């Protein structure tokens, strides 16, 4: 077994173990006699824990650590490992299969997901403890007879769903083609549905679960459109190059690979079409040849993947291989940029540029749904109806981050215009969500909005060309956000299922471990740091590094594209808002004097089974990003970076003012220090403001609330998205649905019934016609004949003489007639 096979097998085992666990847990749990057994939970923990060990081993084996830690070595951190599990269907040249595609991003995601999932599983052992009973009373459900709802505990079911989720999530990360991503995309969606609706008796929970799944399906509708475009234009879903009948078939990433251009002002090309710049015209007479020539020069293009190009000057701008009119993108046979020739028509295979944008935006629509981005963000806060470990695992660290993961994984397929869409969507989301978080009072909802906002940051990072920055934030965020969710879970359990912050306060004295681990998370998410180097590194938690990277990328992007200044200022301001609402949460909950003495009196620190995961996660929340952009985590991510990111990308279809230039890594690096200061200032001012309002309570928040009551209400109502969607979509759908049934009933069936009535009418007529006309005629003839016969009866006297006389008269009459008619 080669090293590659070993890694693939390790990850496959880590992926399938939770599935095995799910099957055993769900059936074993159902048939076990008592609901007090922890067997299913331990099984789930064992499965995911083993998965973590396997992933770590795979990570260890897969990465070239020498390259990673040697700043002067520009080698490859890891070569990707592609492969196929089995075939789903094959239609001529079209092949659909389950594949795997392993690169350092995959390994990192595997390790991150399994590690966090293990912590959360352990935490859930304690958190879900009240389900370990044969008679569980659900105080939130009121029956029609006024009593509370009693049911057997469902400890096993929770853990089996969690296992199913882990399986789906790992499958999503391991997927080697975009169709397979979609498969697991739906599966994590259904796991999320099952877990949000875990308390099936609660109407609010099942509503939230439905909402989550259906809103996600709205995004998936776009995803499918993207898939259709890719399938029809590219003929494959696979990321990687492969062979069909020993014929090499390029994967998506190769087909769309960029070609180099020496001209850093490619965006001005449209201008020359208008005759503004003429001097470049001659130089670019044969852009295709040039492009191909350059492509060959960069024959070892894939090696650029792992290069630490920070501060180097050999970066070139890369762009899609477009034609002169910039309306189609040519597809490549290999990484050198050889175009695919259609054997039949002898033309070069290409995809219209606009269609590439449709494909990108379509797939990204899926990401919008899954990562709760504007305008589909409304499902995530409601999803907090699920148990808190679910919120920590599914709705902060892993599943919702899958949208960002996919945006990163699929990055090579995104045209610059799509990236701009991603950036703006992220930008709007991070601001909208942050503003709602300011006024939310439910501790979990604050965290939910903060999650949406942070996901927006990640999307923004990816959209402005900070590929590694966005994914960097994904990893760090996963740790500190799951930490904070678990801490909030600890608070909720400690306060006997009280979630409203206005009834908390001063809890740090009662639950110090929870309070301080939460503080770690808060500092991490706000990006607070001591901005001076000590021992060659800044003293900062993970969130500082990653958010800093995003802000730097967007600053560089703004420098390159002045018109998109909002993409820098909005996230900068929101960094301050983030610090404000996160510290508000901490001060509200843990600091000061208790607001509700009863809650405070009954509060207690959680048992070790819940606090140890908090401590483990806070360790990672502090140290995971150590070294910042020169640290190992960032290096690992860069090992998977699409190689055109390095040099920056230029929009090829846009004209004049709407041209987009993606900053190169060099550009980003140049503004890094500056951006770091801006972000830090914003964060500190937010934190200080929160301290004034909720820490030492100098300013009364109620005053502000009164003065801005209109804004406050608007924010509390979540920018009124739910109402809007209710009016715009849900009601019309029900109306149309009723129309459809009505149409069936009234028109189609109506027509049929009318036809059948008419048929009956016609047959009635038929009967009448038969009875009156035909029978009448027959009867009339009969009657006439009868009457005639009757009148002739008088002639029949029976006298021979009379008859002879009749005959004689008859003969005479005949003769007379003959003579009259034929006179001789």
């Amino acid at each position, binding site marked *: 077994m080669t090293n590659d096979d070993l890694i693939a097998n390790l990850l496959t085992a880590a992926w399938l173990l939770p599935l095995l666990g799910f099957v055993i847990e769900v059936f074993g749990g159902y048939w076990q006699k008592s609901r007090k057994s922890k067997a299913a939970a331990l099984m789930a923990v064992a499965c995911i824990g083993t998965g973590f060990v396997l992933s770590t081993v795979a990570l260890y084996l897969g990465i070239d650590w020498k390259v990673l830690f040697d700043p002067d070595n520009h080698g490859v951190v890891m070569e990707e490992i592609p492969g196929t599990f089995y075939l789903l269907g094959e239609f001529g040249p079209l092949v659909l299969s389950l594949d795997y595609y392993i690169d350092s991003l995959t390994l990192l995601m595997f390790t991150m997901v399994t590690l966090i999932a293990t912590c959360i599983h352990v935490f859930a052992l304690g958190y879900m403890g009240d389900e370990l009973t044969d008679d569980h009373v659900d105080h939130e459900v009121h029956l029609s007879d006024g009593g509370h709802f009693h049911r057997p505990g469902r400890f096993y079911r929770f853990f089996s769903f969690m296992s199913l989720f882990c399986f789906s999530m790992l499958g999503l990360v391991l997927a080697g083609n975009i169709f397979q991503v979609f498969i697991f995309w739906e599966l994590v969606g259904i796991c999320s549905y099952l877990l949000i609706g875990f308390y099936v008796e609660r109407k609010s929970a099942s509503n939230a679960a439905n909402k989550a799944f259906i809103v996600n399906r709205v995004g998936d509708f776009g995803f499918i459109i993207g898939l259709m475009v890719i399938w029809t234009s590219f003929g494959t879903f696979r990321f990687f190059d492969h062979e069909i009948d020993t014929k090499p078939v390029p994967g998506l990433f190769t087909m769309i690979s960029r070609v180099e251009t020496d001209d850093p002002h490619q965006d001005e090309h449209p201008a020359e079409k208008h005759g503004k710049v003429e001097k470049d015209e001659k130089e670019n007479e044969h852009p295709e040849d040039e492009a191909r020539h350059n492509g060959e020069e960069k024959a070892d293009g894939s090696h650029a993947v792992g290069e630490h190009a920070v501060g180097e000057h050999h970066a070139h701008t890369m762009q899609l291989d477009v034609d002169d009119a910039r309306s189609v993108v040519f597809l490549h046979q290999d990484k050198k940029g050889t175009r695919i020739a259609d054997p039949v028509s002898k033309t070069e295979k290409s995809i219209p540029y606009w269609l590439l944008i449709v494909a990108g935006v379509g797939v990204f629509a899926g990401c919008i749904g899954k990562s709760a981005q504007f305008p589909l963000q409304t499902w995530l806060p409601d999803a907090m109806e699920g148990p808190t470990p679910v919120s920590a695992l599914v709705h902060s660290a892993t599943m919702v981050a899958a949208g960002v993961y996919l945006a990163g994984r699929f990055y090579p397929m995104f045209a610059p215009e799509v990236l701009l869409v991603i950036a703006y969507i992220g930008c709007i989301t991070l601001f909208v969500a942050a503003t709602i978080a300011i006024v939310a009072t439910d501790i979990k909802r604050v965290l939910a909005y903060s999650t949406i906002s942070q996901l927006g940051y990640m999307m923004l990072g990816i959209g402005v060309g900070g590929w590694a920055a966005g994914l960097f934030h994904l990893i760090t965020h996963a740790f500190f956000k799951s930490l904070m969710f678990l801490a909030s879970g600890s608070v909720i359990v400690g306060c006997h299922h009280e979630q409203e912050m206005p009834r908390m306060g001063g809890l740090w004295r009662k639950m110090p471990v929870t309070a301080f681990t939460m503080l770690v998370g808060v500092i991490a998410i706000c990006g607070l740091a001591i901005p001076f180097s000590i021992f060659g590194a800044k003293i900062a938690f993970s969130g500082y590094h990653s958010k800093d990277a995003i802000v730097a990328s967007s600053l560089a992007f703004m420098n390159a594209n002045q018109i998109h200044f909002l993409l820098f200022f909005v996230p900068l301001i929101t960094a301050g808002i983030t610090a404000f609402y996160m510290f508000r949460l901490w001060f509200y909950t843990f600091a000061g004097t208790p607001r509700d003495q009863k809650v405070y009196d009954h509060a207690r620190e959680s048992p070790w089974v819940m606090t140890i995961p908090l401590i483990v996660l806070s360790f990672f929340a502090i140290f995971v990003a150590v070294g910042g952009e020169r640290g190992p985590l960032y290096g690992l991510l860069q090992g998977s970076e699409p190689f055109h990111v390095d040099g920056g990308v230029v929009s090829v279809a846009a004209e004049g003012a709407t041209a987009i230039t993606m900053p190169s890594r060099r550009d980003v690096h140049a503004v890094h220090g500056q951006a770091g200061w801006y972000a830090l200032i914003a964060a500190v001012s937010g934190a200080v403001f929160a301290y004034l309002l909720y820490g030492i309570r100098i300013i009364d928040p109620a005053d502000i609330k009164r003065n801005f009551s209109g804004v406050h209400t608007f924010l509390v109502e979540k920018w009124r998205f739910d109402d809007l969607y209710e009016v715009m979509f849900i009601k019309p*759908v029900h109306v149309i649905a009723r129309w459809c049934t009505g149409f069936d009933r009234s028109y189609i069936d109506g027509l049929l019934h009318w036809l059948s009535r008419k048929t009956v009418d016609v047959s009635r007529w038929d009967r009448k016609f038969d009875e009156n006309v035909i029978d009448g005629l027959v009867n009339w003839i009969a009657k006439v004949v009868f009457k005639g016969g009757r009148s002739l009866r008088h002639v029949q006297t029976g006298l021979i003489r009379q008859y002879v006389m009749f005959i004689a008269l008859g003969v005479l009459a005949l003769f007379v007639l003959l003579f009259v008619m034929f006179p001789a």
Partner: protein
Amino acid sequence: MASGERKPPDDAQNRFQRQVSIMDSSTLLLSLIIFTPTFGALALWLFDRKAEESMRYCALVFTAITFVLTLFLLGEFDRDDPGIQPVRIQVNEVSAEEPEPEYERLETYHVAAEGEVLDGEKLTAGQIVSGSKVYDESEVQRGVVHEWIGQWNINYTLGYDGISVPLVLLTSFISLLSLLAAWNIKKHVRGFLILFLLLESGMLGVFLSLDFFLFYVFWEVMLLPMYFLIGIWGGPRKEYAAIKFFLYTLVGSVLMLIAMLMVYYNSGQSFDLQFLARVGQGLEEGLGFSQSIQIAAFILLFIGFAIKIPSFPFHTWLPDAHVEAPTPISMILAGVLLKMGGYGILRIAFPLCPVGAQYAAWVLALIGAFSIIYGAFAAMAQTDFKRLVAYSSVSHMGYVLLGIAVWKIGESTGSAAVGKEYWLMGMNGAMFQMLAHGVSSAGMFFMVGVIYDRVHHRDLNQFGGLMGLMPFYSGLAVGIFFAGLGLPGLCGFIGEVFVVLSTWNFSPPLAIVAAAGVILTAGYILWAIQRVFLGPEYKGPHKEDITPMNGREASIAVVLLVFAIVLGVYPESMFGLMRGSMELLVDNLDQGYQEVSRAIEKASTVMR
């Protein structure tokens, strides 16, 4: 003639064996598959009227035998040969003493590929190679043919290929499960079972017959038992539903009859579907259907089959029939009967009238896409659980029509298909969707039936809390409903998504419309699940009758769910069966269309 050296094996031993077996093995197997249920129906007369339990077991045994026989058929089926099977050769010279030719099945053979060489001799594609012998396509008989009504050239022709084998399997499988589901029918048990078995014979006959007349006969044979099964064992409005079903289908049958006579008299009086397909595809010298006949016949056939599918606007019999039919009959109706529409289009309407099919492809695709959306919307508005499932069938079968119809021809390529592989994928997706829907909708109807048996109502607003009262049932039911929702890993997903993916090549707007179905489907299924299974308490009557499923019910549900998972996780199991035949069909249609349109063009220039 490449097989000049072939000598007919006429040694005495062979001759003796042939005389002993009056029917050769393949005729026997196919006939047994069709008529075993009929024998079962006859056998039921032997029982005492009161021995209901024994009669049920008797019927069960006969359905089980049929199922096993279809498994044999699966074993016999050679998936490397895309054409109609069995492949048989004539083994005697027709003479005065033996006026009838005799055939023997070729046990091992393969179809020569282009450029294949055997013993230094180059073969032409399509020749049949058996050992060292080579036969031309015209020398072998595909399928079994026995004369039935000679003067009208009607034959007893049976055969199978990759399109019919999966459907035959589905039929016998669903029949077996439905019969198990019929265990608690108490009224006129003997009559029910007899009709049920006759129905099964009719269905299997439809899928196996290759003579148009025979097909028509089986099609009608199926109709009457269904009428009585709904009309006698149905719910409160059973008479209305039964007559509606009967009249709808009869209209379809009449249209099919007209089309049948049209092609009969335009093909030198043949009912042989293989021959008719060759005529329709312009492969028979001197014969052919003119453009107007193709179009007219196709429209007639299509309406006949569309009623069965059923697609908008011919679908309103379905909700009524389903709502009134007893559970096992609903399972048969949704699981098998609806597939006959799709099968008829694939087996008859398209191959016989490729020009007509291409002419109407847009309308078909439009109807398919519209049915998807319309059915989903209508399902959302239902308050009757069974009606909701019935409308979901309209929606799901829309994918079948859409997948079959995505046949695109381009201006630049003349009349050749553009992106033929996408059409092939659509066809395969449609076939798979039929199988998947057979499993998932039969499962859904069964699940509705289980709860109906307990509480005797189906009002969606009067359920709730079943998850707590019947957890095992609810778990299985939710699984099966997810299969209907098109969740990956379950059967519904593959068919739907493959069809949708193949549609973009045909028409992006239609593809978008079809894809929008995923949102609506999720909507109505999740909403139904919420109203029935979730919530704290059951809101309807007869709460005390809600008992867990018994072993029989549980095993039916488990088997269906397992198959839904197997098909969803490993769809290649079915695609592998149908691949060859589907490719052949698509190639034939594509080439047939080009052939015929060339001929038509030539004719029109001559006329000018």
